[in-house]
């Protein structure tokens, strides 16, 4: 069985321009303020929905496409389709991450009443990473979702 490898490439941070960070900061700050205002005006039931709002996803996906197009353009190739495919793969990863997000919310909802808040937030973040990571691994390995897809073919 081929085990999928996760790599860390810190040099990728140098490729991000300052205004791209600024854009993320702006979107992130705006949705956090927005969620607070909605909760204040219409109550925490409605405000809570926005804790799982895909605030920066459109900007991130566009960035993925742009970077790939630039990379391919340097080699004299039109990278439009490749950029879209990569953004699609990024979105598929986010779909798995969103199941982790549900695990995060469940952990906070269930355990916050009786446990220290910092521990619950830490545990919930761990639950998000664990669920997302395991689902990603299953999707990538031949004993995972690929096997199910092959069976259905």
């Amino acid at each position, binding site marked *: 069985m081929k085990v*999928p490898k*996760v*790599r*860390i*490439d*810190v040099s*990728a*941070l140098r490729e*991000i321009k300052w205004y791209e*960070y600024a854009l*993320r*900061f702006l979107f*992130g*700050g705006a949705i*956090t*303020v927005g*969620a*607070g205002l909605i*909760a204040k005006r219409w109550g*925490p*039931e*409605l405000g*809570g*929905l*926005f*804790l*799982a*709002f*895909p605030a*920066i*996803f459109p900007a*991130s*996906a*566009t960035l993925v*496409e742009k970077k790939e197009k630039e990379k391919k353009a340097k080699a004299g190739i039109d990278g439009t389709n490749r950029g*879209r*495919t990569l*953004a*699609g*793969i*990024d*979105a*598929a*990863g*986010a*779909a798995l991450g*969103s199941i*982790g*997000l549900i695990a995060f*919310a*469940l952990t*906070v*909802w269930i355990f916050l*009443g009786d446990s220290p*808040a910092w521990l619950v*937030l830490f545990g919930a*973040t761990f639950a*998000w990473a664990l669920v*997302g990571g395991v689902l*990603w691994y299953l999707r990538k390995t031949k004993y995972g979702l690929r096997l199910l897809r092959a069976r259905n073919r």
Partner: protein
Amino acid sequence: MKEMIFRFLVGGAVVCCFSALGDIFKPKSFAGLLGAAPSVALATLSLTLFKDGKHYAQIEARSMILGGFAFFLYAWLVAWLLVRSVVIRRKFSVLAVASTSLVLWFAAALGFFYVAFR
């Protein structure tokens, strides 16, 4: 006003940290997980816990479960449309697909909310 500025700064900083993590991870499918990081939730819940207490934060977390399901539908639709646009050779831009699909998030989140809390 002070509280809103603080909220803005904390939210922006946490979102930036998670997206920087998304930039350094390879392959792209794994980095995509960070696209659904609980960044806004961490910032908001931390501030809510200080100001409004545990019970209020628990109510927000319960609704967040519904928002998470809506996020799943949204991300799945975006992935499908983008891969499909390459297959059928349509020129859908990533920004257009990702932005217009937010309508699905709103519809799903508010629909789940209506069913759960009506």
